[in-house]
């Protein structure tokens, strides 16, 4: 069914979800909040992968599955594909989206806070906050990817790296 809703629905829902968990339910426990947000993403990814793999032959190996995530899956979600896929051929894949929509349209202005999450605790408090918010937002897509892959029989860990915004790369480490 080609049903659609306005993008601002999704955006505001995500923003609200993140802020509820970070600022209201687990205000002082960011790692708990993160885990919940990731869990939500996981369920969504799990269900979406079930949907989007309908009508297609089974994947014969991990790479095929990852490619599926990069191409069809991503375009279903963002109307664009992953721009760059790298791998070390030992179970680690890096999926880079040069302009990750959910960051681009986020309330916090990415340019303001200086890149990599780890670095900017040096930066001022507000930027820190922004960075934290950003990272919180990223737990959701990470969860989606992990959920999708694990449903395709690939248990893995997914992390995000926004050291050069607005590009965002997701690092998938497949559990051997």
């Amino acid at each position: 069914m080609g049903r659609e809703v306005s993008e601002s629905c999704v955006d505001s829902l995500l923003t609200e979800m993140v802020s509820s968990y970070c600022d209201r339910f687990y205000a002082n426990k960011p790692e708990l909040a993160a885990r919940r947000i990731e869990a939500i993403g996981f369920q969504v990814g799990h269900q979406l992968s079930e949907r989007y793999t309908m009508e297609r032959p089974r994947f014969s190996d991990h790479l095929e599955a990852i490619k599926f995530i990069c191409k069809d899956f991503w375009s279903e979600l963002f109307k664009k594909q992953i721009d760059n896929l790298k791998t070390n051929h030992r179970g680690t894949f890096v999926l880079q989206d040069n302009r990750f929509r959910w960051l681009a349209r986020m309330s916090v202005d990415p340019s303001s806070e200086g890149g990599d999450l780890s670095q900017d605790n040096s930066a001022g408090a507000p930027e820190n906050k922004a960075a934290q918010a950003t990272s919180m937002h990223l737990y959701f897509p990470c969860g989606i990817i992990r959920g999708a892959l694990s449903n395709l029989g690939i248990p893995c860990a997914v992390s995000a790296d926004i050291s050069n915004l607005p590009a965002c790369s997701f690092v998938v480490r497949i559990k051997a």
Partner: protein
Amino acid sequence: MPEKMIVCVAVVGHQNNPLYIQSFTEADDALKLHHIVHCSLDVVDERVNNPKKSGSPLNETFLGLLYPTENYKVYGYLTNTKVKFIVVTTDLDVRDADVRNFFRRFHAAYVDAVSNPFHVPGKKITSRTFAERVSTIVKSFGLSSAG
């Protein structure tokens, strides 16, 4: 009752455990159908593990006829997420096309069922909507293309 008729459908999970199994016969052999479905899992394994031997094309979700029993034919389907669908039909000449078509619709129903936020993956499917949808699909089986 239609010429070609489905007597049993099943969804089988990762540990080969039944997630949903429903039979549609007046005859009192639901239990037998359980057995047939369970046995068919052996063939599914065989097909998936060495696809070249059986003629079926590589990695296609539709696994084709698994085996004919005394009065039934058993067909299989394996989703990308490693969930197995099994359908048992009466042993009149069933066209592959019909079965494929059935599986396609069944898969769609399944996906919607597991899209229910309250469904826990790997657990039995108790959704009533799903049950209803399945029974309608089953009823309309073969009618579309049946001469």
